[in-house]
């Protein structure tokens, strides 16, 4: 069919971040992941009669930290509300959340997509408690309920509908992920559900002001899936409209196996949550003093750090981006620069190249790196002072990865020190020239390519330890 119509995609994201507190938001039960079912669910989490919630100070502090980091308004006065619905993993019959007066309002975050920076508005971020988990298999027709997660503090971060492609949505989600880990308020572990997102997606004819009807895609827990789910949903909506249909406002689930979204059976009254202020909790007042205390503890934030890396260390956008994507990796880089006193570019290339590749291959985090900053700095020093070539350095790095030896120990033990003694190099060159009269003739008759053969032979004879610049210079002179 004819598709002359151009469509614009409109996306807003709701990101749920699990706050990295030790105890729950309203009780003193532990939040650690992976405990035996229901061993971390106390009377408050179970919603037993007569219990009262008491708010966790750390959860409030973390929410304020986030608010300050996105230059948002921190509500001097915020209120908890009950969101009423019935589901077995929500024992009280309501979730304690925030509705009219959230703790964080009206902030923003800059994202980079295809070389341009775009500012995404953040409508609000509010504190709430997580629900438990339902297990539907293998209980002879019953559902099993684990309430360990019930009461875990969440910060729900709601963006404005300002993203215009799945790519922008992923960039935004990554930025939030990076930020919450920088702030140390969320471990960002997506497999364990610490960081998950709902996407509100709609389409409209390009140029139209009014938004189209949106569908909400629930519980997406990977960057790859958010992009696929949105792209799929956009296609579905456009096809539907172009075939004369209408998008209905509904909740859809993304099926990563079939790569499609499908409607969740929506119960008739599902969206009537009847919010009202929770009488068990008093309003939360946040003083200017509390705010400035937290502000003083804020680390340097990713965007600022990236900018500084570009200016202070003259790094390109790509390297600065990779290094500042995690606070620990950025710290690692700065330690290596300080310890080795080598050129920052050399340090950056080694870290974003060999080190990150080795970490990825071993599925390790930078904090688990077998090669610490001191040892890497020791290696870079030896490249810098020409003790070893870059090529030999890769061998040394591999040996460092497998042992706890320093670069100097490995270089000494394996005899990898670069030979700069021109007498030794000259002897080898003379031998190679004498052994290969045919190649010498070819070279002298104008076949320049044969030069590489000689370099290769010399390096081979010297087990890669000759200084390549020196070898080139001497060969050129000899072969005249």
């Amino acid at each position, binding site marked *: 069919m004819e598709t002359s119509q151009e469509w614009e995609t409109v996306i807003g994201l709701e990101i749920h971040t699990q706050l990295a507190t030790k105890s729950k938001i309203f009780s003193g039960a532990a939040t650690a992941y992976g405990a035996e079912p229901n061993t971390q669910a106390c009377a408050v989490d179970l919603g037993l009669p007569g219990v009262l919630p008491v708010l*966790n100070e750390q959860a409030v502090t973390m929410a304020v930290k986030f608010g300050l980091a996105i230059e948002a308004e921190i509500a001097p006065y915020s209120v908890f509300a009950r969101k009423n619905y019935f589901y077995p993993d929500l024992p009280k019959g309501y979730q304690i959340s925030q509705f009219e007066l959230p703790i964080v309002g009206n902030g923003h975050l800059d994202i980079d997509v295809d070389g341009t920076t775009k500012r995404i508005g953040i409508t609000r971020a509010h504190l709430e408690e997580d629900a438990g988990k339902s297990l539907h298999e293998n209980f002879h027709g019953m559902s099993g309920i684990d309430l360990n997660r019930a009461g875990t503090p969440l910060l729900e971060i709601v963006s404005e509908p300002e993203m215009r492609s799945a790519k922008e949505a992923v960039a935004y989600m990554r930025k939030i992920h990076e930020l919450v880990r920088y702030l140390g308020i969320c471990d960002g572990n997506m497999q364990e559900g610490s960081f998950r997102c709902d996407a509100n997606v709609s389409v409209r004819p390009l140029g139209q002001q009014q938004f189209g009807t949106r569908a909400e895609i629930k519980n997406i827990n990977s960057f790859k899936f958010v992009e696929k789910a949105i792209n799929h949903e956009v296609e579905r909506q456009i096809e539907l409209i172009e075939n004369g249909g209408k998008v209905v406002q509904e909740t859809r689930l993304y099926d990563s196996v079939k790569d499609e979204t499908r409607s969740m059976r929506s119960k008739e009254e599902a969206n009537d949550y009847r919010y009202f202020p929770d009488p068990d909790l008093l309003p939360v007042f946040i003083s200017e003093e509390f705010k400035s205390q937290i502000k003083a503890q804020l680390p340097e934030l990713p965007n600022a750090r990236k900018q500084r890396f570009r200016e202070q260390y003259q790094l390109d956008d790509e390297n600065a981006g990779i290094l500042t994507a995690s606070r620990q990796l950025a710290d690692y880089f700065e330690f290596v620069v300080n310890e080795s006193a080598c050129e920052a570019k050399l340090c950056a290339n080694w870290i974003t190249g060999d080190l990150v590749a080795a970490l990825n291959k071993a599925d390790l985090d930078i904090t688990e790196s077998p090669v610490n900053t001191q040892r890497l700095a020791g290696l870079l020093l030896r490249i810098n002072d020409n003790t070893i070539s870059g090529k030999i350095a890769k061998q040394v790095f591999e040996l460092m990865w497998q042992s706890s030896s320093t670069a100097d120990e490995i270089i000494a033990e394996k005899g990898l020190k670069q030979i700069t003694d021109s007498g030794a190099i000259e002897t080898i060159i003379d031998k190679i020239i004498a052994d290969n009269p045919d190649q010498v003739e070819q070279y002298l008759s104008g076949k320049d390519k044969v030069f590489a053969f000689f370099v290769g032979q010399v390096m081979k004879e010297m087990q890669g330890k000759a200084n390549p610049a020196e070898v080139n210079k001497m060969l050129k002179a000899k072969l005249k």
Partner: protein
Amino acid sequence: MTLTADDVKKIAYLARLGIDQQDVESYTKDLSGMLELMTQMSETNTDGVLPMAHPMDQSQRLRVDEVTEQDNRNNFQAIAPQVEEGLYLVPKVIE
């Protein structure tokens, strides 16, 4: 504002309250009366008055982030209707 019998049934359903058909009429009347009172209160001039979220004019006290609860699963599950492998069992909620 006056409620209808259907409104009352809907509210009861949302709160999962079972009400007898014979009581619907009196509930409708009582609840409408409450709303009527609200309407009267709404007519009061409240310019410059901050809305209250709680009758106690105090700030929420905060708890230090410490684990203070021990595992009490055996005691809690002793009073649960049905448990298995440490889980609380409930009638199946999805098909």
